[in-house]
């Protein structure tokens, strides 16, 4: 039994639920049997991957769905061995090069060379090129992106790249100008609701409108999350109740609690407390960007406009230095300490004013 997310993933452009016009255009694009390098970008859960898979299916037929996992080995110049997991079919190969950390340049170059130098055996039967799908391009180092630029140029006859990124602000312009960029906006709440209703109908379930709307609001435009939440709700309690509790991810609750801890008391002791909580989050591999975002959001709800302004300024500064430095915890903690100082000052001022 598969998850609803996979079970109800559309597999042709006519079946997608939103951005229909864009789907039509993508269909036009592959109709000629050829396309330039593509760069899909959009927030997570907007349907980038779904669209890419549909595109590949249109191109190669259902053969692309027969997937196999492969481990690939690469060796760096300093004789360090790297192992990377790839997912591949006969026609395409998918890889997340940023898994290799700072060695991603080697992975990108080697992989594409390997894949591109083998020609398809029977070019009349199949397309004359393979597709390499690189995910999380925005997480690649600048070095790897530069290398990509050259490799893209060289092997255009035998392979096409499909790049997938959350935001193109971290993709170098040289790559952006070589690809046709396709923006995939996240679905609106109304669209999410209609998708949820549809799925429930197909499952033979009835879902109250209110519940679906609440799930959509909680999911922040992330359709995958919405569907997963919906399924979790069903496991929790069925028949649905419109005031049913919606399960939120643990880490999100944990960050909210952390924010409350910070707001409750602004002392060095408490800072220690917060530190252990932050470590806990980091240990579990929650991306720092998310920690920062939700922590800031939660803290801001309890602040006045004047304080907000100051806090955001401080936050943007520390979040930036976090990317320049190497130890994440320093910057997170510095932000918390600074926030405590600002907040305490503000509280004292208000008390004095009264």
């Amino acid at each position, binding site marked *: 039994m598969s998850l609803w997310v996979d079970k109800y993933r559309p597999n042709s452009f006519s079946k997608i639920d939103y951005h229909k016009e864009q789907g039509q255009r993508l269909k036009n694009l592959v109709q000629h049997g050829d*396309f330039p390098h593509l760069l899909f970008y959009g927030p997570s859960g907007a349907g980038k991957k779904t669209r890419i898979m549909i595109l590949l299916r249109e191109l190669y037929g259902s053969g692309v769905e027969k997937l196999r996992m492969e481990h690939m080995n690469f060796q760096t110049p300093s004789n360090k061995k790297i192992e990377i997991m790839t997912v591949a079919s006969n026609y395409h190969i998918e890889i997340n090069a940023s898994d290799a950390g700072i060695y991603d340049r080697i992975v990108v170059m080697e992989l594409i060379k390997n894949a591109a130098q083998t020609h398809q055996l029977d070019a009349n039967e199949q397309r004359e090129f393979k597709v390499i799908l690189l995910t999380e391009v925005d997480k690649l180092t600048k070095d790897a992106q530069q290398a990509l630029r050259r490799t893209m*140029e060289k092997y255009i006859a035998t392979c096409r790249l499909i790049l997938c990124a959350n935001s193109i602000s*971290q993709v170098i312009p040289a790559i952006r100008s070589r690809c046709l960029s396709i923006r995939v906006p996240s679905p609106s709440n109304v669209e999410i609701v209609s998708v949820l209703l549809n799925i429930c109908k197909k499952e033979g379930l009835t879902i109250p409108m209110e519940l679906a709307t609440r799930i959509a609001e909680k999911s922040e435009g992330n359709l995958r999350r919405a569907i997963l939440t919906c399924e979790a709700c069903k496991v929790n309690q069925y028949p649905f109740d419109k005031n049913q509790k919606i399960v939120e991810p643990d880490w999100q609750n944990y960050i909210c609690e952390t924010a409350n801890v910070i707001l409750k008391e602004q002392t060095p002791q408490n800072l220690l407390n917060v530190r252990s909580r932050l470590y806990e989050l980091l240990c579990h591999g929650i991306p720092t960007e998310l920690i920062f975002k939700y922590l800031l959001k939660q803290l801001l709800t309890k602040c006045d*406009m004047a304080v907000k302004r100051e806090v955001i*300024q401080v936050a943007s500064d520390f979040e*930036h230095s976090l990317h320049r430095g190497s130890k994440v915890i320093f910057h997170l903690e510095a932000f918390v300490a600074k926030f405590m100082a600002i907040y305490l000052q503000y509280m004292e001022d208000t008390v004095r004013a009264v």
Partner: protein
Amino acid sequence: MDAFLRGGKASAGDEASTSKGRKEDKKLKKPTPWVEKYRPRTVDDIVEQNEIVATLKQCLQGADLPHFLFYGPPGTGKTSTIIAAARQLFGDMYKDRILELNASDDRGIQVIREKVKSFSQVSVSSVRPDGKPCPPYKIVILDEADSMTAAAQAALRRTMEKETRSTRFCLICNYVSCIIQPLTSRCAKYRFKPLSRETMIKRLNLICLEEKVSYDTRTLDLLVDMSGGDLRRAITCLQSCVRLKGEEGIVYDDILEVTGVIPDNYIENLLDVCRQHNYDKMEHFVEEILSKAYCAPQVLEQIQEIIIPRPDLTDAQKSHICEKIAVCSWRLQDGASEYIQLLDLGCSMIEVL
């Protein structure tokens, strides 16, 4: 991009030479990139860059060719110029007489010492196989020379002088300041100006006509605005639009979509929201922009464009906002979170507006 297209073509050729039948098949099927298709073929086709065209014309008539250094913004025809000139100089022998090194090749000192040196030491005859005269030298084109290391550039110095008899160098770069002094003093420097509006529109008009694309003037205007004097970008963008749309013809919104430009009313709304001094609305708006997958640097750029000419803002306000934009854009460059940076900018705007 040039090399990208050329590389594609070259390797396609290699592959096809194995079986002739397939080659013809492919030619029918494969649409050529328009940048390649409408690349100037002769020196006379090159527009706007008068000085260099005049010099090259003299060279074609038999005058000696100096070492060249071309610099200027992308998409102004630097590579096209030298390629066109080389084609006219060498005709069919073009492939043998040219060594083109894209800077994103291996371009360390090793390559300069071995590849370039050995290529330049070979002398060539002054007649073509068919008996016509041709210049007795080869050309080494170093594209994107500004990303060569200083050591590699230094290794070129003596080679350039010693092999003048048999080889000419052409260095192409965007920033002349990245080329070491000894090299610039050995070359004839030419600056390529950004193309003017009229020229670009004329060229795009011609392409649309040839390709039977329906369009209106407003669309072309936008396309030219977006590309900022970079003709290659404009043409690539035009072709992407046409491929996406199929046979329907392109309209204003398609260009916006392909270039990732944010519709102006979004930015105007952001300013309005900030003027209302309402933090919650501003936050909501930032979230909406990001969920539409518009990218933050683009937002910054467009805010700046809109703010500068506005008469209802004082100079102090403008300078304040622009300063913040600069800081945010620097932070984004380092990989900072788009959400927090945009919030920061929004707050600053709330404060000053």
